[in-house]
């Protein structure tokens, strides 16, 4: 269930940038952002925050999957040891 | 010994295929329907976008090739013949080469039909420089088949083999499609850009050499339990 939810969230996160606005016609040389009229400038803060937040979420998610798998393995070991003790000759 | 085994494997596959011609015909028909789908998708007001013809040709080759690979090894798996081959006292890499030659021949025949068909539908002068065109097609097909044969063989015992083969194969054969399409497009330009096409041909040839070598090295390891 959690796995499905996580997969769904990841799919949305991955696919959203692909559906972004079409890029404007190319410029022929590099123009620093300060020269571009204010109407064409994007607010940078949400982009920066999204980037850092995504990094944090991704790393924490991975740490959580390792934690979860480690717990499962430890539970398996304990269960096996219990059964071994019970059926010991 | 090595090439005799490879040739014997090729002859076996050829003998089986020539009786029913099942894989050949179905692959051909699939490639043709692929081209038709692209035609209906791309042609606007009676004209295809420029440079569409090489792209469509190579995509059709790759899609048809993927299917052909799957079906060829499905036949092996069904008849359990590969296990028999592996038990034979034959050098394993020779089996790989035999299967590779079979796939290349099959795709070659398919291309014999596809190239004129795409040239016909999309008004592309594929035959302006026949030698370079043939070499490009050969190099690209060999490269695709080299990686494809190895992956299809190793996936034979996997349950999800049908969907895993494209997932594994397409990222690895990206240089083939880039080289093939750009090389063919260079040949279709108004004064045909032979230098460019030769350069792409060299890249494809290098790809072929590297990946056939890698496949020969790893085939034995991958086919054993």
């Amino acid at each position, binding site marked *: 269930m959690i796995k499905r939810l996580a997969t769904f969230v990841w799919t949305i996160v*991955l696919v959203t*940038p692909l559906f*972004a606005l079409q*890029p404007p016609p*190319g*410029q*022929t040389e590099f123009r*620093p*952002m*300060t020269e571009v009229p204010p109407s064409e400038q*994007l607010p*940078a*803060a949400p*982009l*920066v925050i999204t*980037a*850092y937040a*995504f*990094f944090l979420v*991704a*790393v924490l998610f991975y*740490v959580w999957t*390792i934690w979860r*798998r*480690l717990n499962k*393995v*430890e539970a*398996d*070991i304990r269960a*096996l040891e219990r*059964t*071994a003790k019970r*059926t010991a000759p | 010994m090595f090439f005799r085994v490879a040739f014997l494997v090729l002859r076996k596959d050829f003998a089986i295929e020539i009786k029913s011609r099942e894989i050949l015909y179905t692959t051909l028909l699939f490639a043709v329907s692929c081209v038709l789908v692209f035609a209906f998708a791309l042609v606007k007001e009676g004209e295809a976008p420029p440079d569409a013809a090489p792209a469509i040709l190579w995509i059709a080759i790759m899609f048809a090739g993927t299917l052909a690979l799957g079906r060829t090894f499905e036949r092996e798996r069904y008849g359990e013949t590969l296990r028999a081959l592996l038990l034979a006292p034959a050098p394993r890499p020779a089996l790989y080469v035999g299967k590779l030659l079979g796939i290349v021949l099959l795709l070659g025949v398919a291309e014999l039909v596809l190239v004129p068909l795409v040239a016909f539908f999309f008004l592309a002068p594929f035959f302006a420089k026949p030698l370079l065109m043939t070499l490009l097609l050969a190099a690209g097909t060999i490269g695709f088949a080299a990686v494809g044969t*190895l*992956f299809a063989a*190793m*996936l034979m*015992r*996997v*349950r*999800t083999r049908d969907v*895993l083969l494209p*997932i*594994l194969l397409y*990222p*690895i054969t*990206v*240089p083939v499609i*880039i*080289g093939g399409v*750009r090389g063919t497009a260079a040949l279709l330009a108004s004064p045909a850009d032979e230098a*460019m096409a030769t350069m792409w041909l060299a*890249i494809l040839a*290098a*790809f072929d050499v590297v990946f056939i070598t*890698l496949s020969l090295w*790893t085939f034995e*390891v*991958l086919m054993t*339990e």
Partner: protein
Amino acid sequence: MMRKLFPVLLAINAVLFVAALIFINRVPPESSMGLVQKIFYFHVPSWIAMYLGIAICGVGSIWYLATGRPQADRAAVAGGELAVLFGLVGLVTGPLWARKAWGVWWQWDARLTTALLLWLTFVAYLTVRKYGGPGSEKLAAAVGLFGTAVAPFVYFSVNIWRTVHPLTTVMPELPNSAPEMVPPMLASIFSFLVLFVVLLMARLELGRRQADVDELYLAYEDRTA
């Protein structure tokens, strides 16, 4: 023991990141790209970490195919998972930066395309391991090996492909580092490397414990059989 060490190491790592963030914050925004350039400090180390993961997976795969040692396989899968993780971070932070800095979400230039394809190849690596059924470690190792081998071909082909046809939007050279950008970048890279090593150790420990369970299970089966 590793289990108890893991949270401690992560806590140390978090402190390192906070320090790096303080550095990043204190550097004045780079004049031509403004605030959004700060993404750069996390974006570049993400790619470094991905390539490190790919290197570990590639070497581990070759070692596993050559010797069959389980440690090699554990190293390979750990490298593969980390490559996919950090590659995903790079692939998401990159467009977020690029949209603001260059006006487009994506560019088909050599570096980006190679990185994307490599990431897809290692996603395929993990897919084969998960859905390939028993014995899929060897198949995945082949994918890892071939994926690493194809990287120079892809880079080279895409490079030529893109320089023949001029880019429609210009990707400027990464700004020459002003001296004040170096400390936060180094701090960030260092934090990422420490994070990489901590996660790698944790993943290897997980692999070892899973191997222990399998051994215990087999021993138990042998005893009660």
